[in-house]
């Protein structure tokens, strides 16, 4: 027994270690160069006739950088765009349009990093994006064009809009006003907060860069997609702001050398979400504007609106990399290129310099800076300034590093040639090198730490093997054990198929249906129910069928009909939704009142007053308790209503407007805190009471686990608070599933299998998937006014894993047979009652009642074993799933979809493996199991 516990503990400890080791190899920490770049020596002084320190004059000294969140290319360039002023600037040659390719993950923080540093942010930034205030993710110490502009003489920066910038650049800005996107239903306030500062700032001449970041358009996308009726007016609003700023640049003297950049940080897909790498998400617009641009645009074809490049949906004009913005701005503003930049100066702007040597100088500095990163990555290769003899050999090598060395040799070659050669061939060679370096360095293949990948995956496999020795004996092989094994085997195979990673919910729905039907067959073998349609297992299956249609999730059928988007819940019908939500809250409140009534009775009992029977309908304690619990239930419900009125006003259509106005005036943070406080207080109160009751009982007599049920109901209330309104009716269905399952008399292995299937099913049914864009942030700030990574992280986890947490608790209760009215009937061999003779049945029933106490006592004896079996099976599952995801990621690391499908899956596997397994299965489950004996 002790050896088993030791093995199981070891296996469990290995899981997080394996995950972390693998993560450091999979998302390696990129070597980054500290400090600010300076203009360094150019080289080839004699040949080129320049001085080593010479710097080409910059055409601009001021920058207005306007980011419109999720500004997809077609929102600006297409026929149907509302940005007609920008289009007129393009036609007149005052604006130079591009499509800026954004790499996955297409969420704001990594994109801002790419734009400002010119580097390709690692996938780890996704995690840091959610842990927003983490100081390690700030760019305060990194080289960016912001830092360069600030370091300039009289350099002052101002910033208005998305506070991501304020978190990335703490204490950078002279003046700033950050807006946060708490509610995506806010389309106007977030933008007015920015726009109101613009007129004043345009009159100030103390800044040399003004950054604006508008969030409204992104919110419209999240709420109603790119075809929302609000989209065109928002584009027009943005266009008017561009017009105001542009005319100020034209008319104000102090702004005449101002470069005005309008860009999106990422785009959006057809659903209005982003995070992945669909063409719509990776194709934001990028427009440079200034009256001075005619100098470079006069020879170009100027057309607008246009259609995207043939064969693409969103590729308008020329496609550049988002990281190219950094060196281009550096060149145009006359500052050194940021040190970690992998971008390439945009060729169209070379026309600003008439002297060919200035152009080469600019590109050479860009190339030398990129080369220094390449050199750091391939320290063994020669990137010197002298032509070497064996560089021909390198050009034939298939190794990407040697190919780069060869291209650099080509640069050295053309730079060293004394004879007068065409400037364009030098420019061409420089671009050849930089483009190749950009491509190589941004492809991640060279960055994996393969030994660590192998080590991490091996540790996970070892954990699986250790767990195998702790498993409950499966001899003879039971069908439920077989089914469990089958799930694990199939899952491991599916993790290698990108489409099944995207459509993982289908696997769980499919397996769960079969399992529930098996439960029906299994029960029918023992005892045939005359009305088999109403058999509990069939009822759970019917409920499962409804639950799986609640939210459409996954990629392939994204946007298909589901219950949440049906007209049933919208507009004036939202009263239907709110009736269901109300029932969910009434149910929880009522159940809580039962526990509180018992607690009152417990204290009465102590003080020698009469003991009230808690389940008695005429119990005065029950009434008192209901009155005591009511405020908590009502507050929780009002919070949900107030939150939804702000977050999803389309769901509160049928609700009385005065009521909505009143709850809106209450202040969300305060009510949320009241709800959380109420839950904590109730938990404390009931725990003390149950502890007293437990003390009052004789030794050796176990309680009936009332405290576990009470904590489960409090957990339910907490999870309701963390769930979006449209998903709350699901808890009524979960509750029914829980009830029917409790009448099924399942054996422990079947219960663990059921728990596993329902935790997974409920995760996807609540609208989650293995895509980062499906992570729901909206309820993660409940009751939090500042930024607190830990609290936001806990709430984020609780809201996205609410379903799994619910079912892991429910499963533990079922395992301990604390759930439902029929709990004491469990584990009685009903096969004895098969003869359908009512007399026999009646007699058996009486016998059963008589034997009940013995059975309960017997079960308590080996119930400790039931829990450790459960843990060891769940550990096996976690180990197998984590190991298979790791092996899939390691084997498929060159796969086309590695960054779009498999890496996000690994992040989710991390959350399941560390977050859910330890917090949910072991900590929460263990607690409920422990107090279940009280």
């Amino acid at each position, binding site marked *: 027994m002790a050896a088993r516990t030791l093995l199981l503990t070891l296996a469990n400890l290995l899981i997080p270690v394996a995950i972390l080791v693998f993560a450091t190899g999979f998302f390696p920490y990129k070597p980054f160069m500290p400090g600010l770049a300076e203009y360094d020596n150019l080289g080839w002084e004699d040949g080129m006739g320049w001085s080593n320190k010479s710097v080409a004059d910059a055409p601009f000294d001021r920058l207005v950088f306007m980011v419109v969140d999720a500004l997809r290319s077609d929102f600006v360039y297409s026929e149907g765009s509302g940005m007609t002023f920008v289009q007129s600037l393009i036609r007149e040659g005052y604006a130079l349009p591009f499509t800026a390719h954004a790499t996955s993950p297409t969420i704001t923080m990594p994109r801002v990093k790419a734009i400002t540093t010119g580097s390709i942010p690692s996938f780890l930034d996704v995690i840091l994006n959610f842990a927003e205030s983490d100081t390690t993710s700030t760019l305060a110490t990194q080289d960016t064009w912001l830092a360069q502009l600030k370091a300039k003489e009289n350099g002052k920066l101002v910033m208005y809009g998305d506070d991501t910038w304020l978190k990335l650049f703490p204490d950078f800005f002279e003046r700033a006003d950050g807006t946060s996107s708490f509610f995506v239903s806010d389309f106007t306030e977030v933008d007015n907060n920015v726009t109101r500062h613009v007129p004043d700032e345009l009159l100030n001449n103390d800044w040399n860069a003004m950054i604006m970041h508008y969030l409204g358009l992104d919110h419209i996308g999240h709420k109603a997609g790119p075809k929302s009726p609000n989209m065109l007016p928002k584009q027009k609003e943005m266009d008017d702001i561009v017009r105001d700023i542009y005319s100020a640049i034209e008319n104000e003297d102090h702004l005449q050398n101002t470069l005005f950049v309008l860009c999106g940080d990422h785009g959006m897909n057809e659903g209005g979400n982003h995070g992945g790498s669909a063409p719509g998400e990776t194709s934001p617009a990028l427009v440079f504007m200034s009256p001075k641009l005619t100098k470079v645009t006069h020879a170009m074809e100027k057309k607008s609106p246009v259609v995207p490049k043939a064969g693409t949906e969103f590729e308008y004009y020329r496609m550049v990399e988002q990281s190219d913005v950094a060196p281009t701005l550096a060149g145009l503003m006359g500052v050194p290129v940021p040190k970690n930049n992998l971008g390439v100066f945009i060729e169209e702007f070379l026309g600003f310099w008439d002297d060919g040597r200035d152009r080469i100088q600019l590109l050479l500095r860009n190339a030398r800076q990129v080369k220094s990163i390449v050199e750091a990555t391939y320290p063994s290769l020669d990137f010197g300034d002298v032509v070497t003899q064996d560089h021909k050999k390198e050009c034939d090598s298939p190794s990407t590093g040697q190919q780069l060395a060869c291209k650099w040799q080509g640069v050295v070659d053309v730079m060293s040639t004394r004879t007068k050669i065409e400037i364009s061939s030098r420019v061409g060679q420089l671009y050849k090198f930089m483009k190749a370096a950009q491509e190589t360095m941004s492809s991640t293949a060279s960055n994996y730490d393969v030994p660590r990948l192998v080590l991490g995956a091996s540790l996970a496999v070892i954990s699986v093997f250790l767990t195998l020795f702790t498993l409950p004996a499966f001899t003879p092989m039971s069908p439920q054990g077989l089914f469990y094994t089958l799930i694990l085997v199939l899952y491991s195979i599916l993790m290698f198929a990108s*489409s099944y990673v*995207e459509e993982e919910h289908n696997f769980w729905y499919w397996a769960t249906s079969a399992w529930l039907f098996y439960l029906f*067959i299994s029960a*029918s*073998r023992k005892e045939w129910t005359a009305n088999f349609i109403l058999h509990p297992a069939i009822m759970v299956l019917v409920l499962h069928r409804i639950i799986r249609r609640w939210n459409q999730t996954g990629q392939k059928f994204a946007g298909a009909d589901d219950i949440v988007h049906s007209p049933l819940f919208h507009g004036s019908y939202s009263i239907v939704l709110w009736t269901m939500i109300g029932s969910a809250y009434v149910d929880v409140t009522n159940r809580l009142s039962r526990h509180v009534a018992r607690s009152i009775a417990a204290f009465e009992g102590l003080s020698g007053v009469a003991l009230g029977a808690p389940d008695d309908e005429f119990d005065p304690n029950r009434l008192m308790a209901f009155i005591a619990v009511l405020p908590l239930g009502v507050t929780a419900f009002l919070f949900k209503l107030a939150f939804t009125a702000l977050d999803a006003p389309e769901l509160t259509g049928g609700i009385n407007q005065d009521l909505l106005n009143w709850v809106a005036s209450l202040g969300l943070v305060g009510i949320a805190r009241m709800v959380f406080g109420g839950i904590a207080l109730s938990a404390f109160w009931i725990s003390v009471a149950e502890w007293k009751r437990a003390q009052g009982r004789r030794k050796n007599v176990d309680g009936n686990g009332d405290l576990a049920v009470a904590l489960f109901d409090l957990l339910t209330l907490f999870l309701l608070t963390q769930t979006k309104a449209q998903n709350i009716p699901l808890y009524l269905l979960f509750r029914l599933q829980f009830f029917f399952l409790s009448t099924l008399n399942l054996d422990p292995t079947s219960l663990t299998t059921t728990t596993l299937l329902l935790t997974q099913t409920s995760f996807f049914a609540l609208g989650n998937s293995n895509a980062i864009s499906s992570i729901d942030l909206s309820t993660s700030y409940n009751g939090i006014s500042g930024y607190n990574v830990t609290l936001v992280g806990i709430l984020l986890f609780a809201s996205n894993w609410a379903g799994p947490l619910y079912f892991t608790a429910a499963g533990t209760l079922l395992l301990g047979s604390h759930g439902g009215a029929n709990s004491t009937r469990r584990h009685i061999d009903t096969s004895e009652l098969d003869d359908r003779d009512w007399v026999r049945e009646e007699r058996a029933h009486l016998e059963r009642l008589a034997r009940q106490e013995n059975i309960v006592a017997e079960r308590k004896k080996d119930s400790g074993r039931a829990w450790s079996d459960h843990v060891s099976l769940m550990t096996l599952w976690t180990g197998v799933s984590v190991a298979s995801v790791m092996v899939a990621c390691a084997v498929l690391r060159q796969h086309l979809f590695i960054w779009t499908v498999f890496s996000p899956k690994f992040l989710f596997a991390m959350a399941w493996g560390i977050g859910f397994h330890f917090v949910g299965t072991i900590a929460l489950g263990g607690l409920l199991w422990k107090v279940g004996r009280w």
Partner: protein
Amino acid sequence: MSTTVIGGAPPKPRPPPTPISHLPTDSARLYTHIHPLLLLSLYTYQFPSIVADPVAGLAATLVPLAALQIAYVAVCLPPTGNGTGSGAGNGPASGGAGGEKRKIGEKKKANGSAGKSDGIGGRIIPAVLSVLLSLLVAAPLLTAALVLFGAPITTHHAHTLLCGAHIAFLAAIPLVYVHGVDGAAWRDAVALLLPVDEVYGGLLGAVCGAWLGAVPIPLDWDREWQKWPVTIVTGAYIGYVFGRLLGGTMLKGKKVMF
């Protein structure tokens, strides 16, 4: 070997069900092997039109499928109540409801007449009745089961119904033919208590095949045949043929144990 009497309950009067064998005639022996090939040929031949237009294709295939199944049961199988399987199928518990008792009487009569006129003509009528029963009872039930397992509920009604009808024709016609409307046999069929034979094996195979047929749907192969319900029906056909084959040979007489 009845699992219903585990645990020392009084022994039950109902005889344990026994596996069905095909009729001991040469034509039965021959056709029982040709039949799966004919089924698969029919399905392969119709497959392109089913993929092109599932509703029209499946509807058109239903009639020849019924014809093939009628031919199969009439040529190869003992009709309900026939003694070939040594009491197979006529085992409603005498302790059961009165209605069941009445049915036994009926079957006894049918048994006698079938025994005398051992010709195919006498077996066509029960075969056609099996088709009707499968169409009217089994098909709706299987369609309901399909919906329960995730078939679309607001769209593709004809698709799902035809899919259910195909599975019913494959799996239920032979079973209805040999077991009739014997409630106990059907209960045992659902509870996996019947011994495996080529008829019951076919049912299990078709149902499992249909379930496994859902696996390719989410893959991103962008093939026409991934659409609903082509893979399910295909799985049912393949599963039926496999189940029949295994049930009639290797696994014959075995019971699903758990």
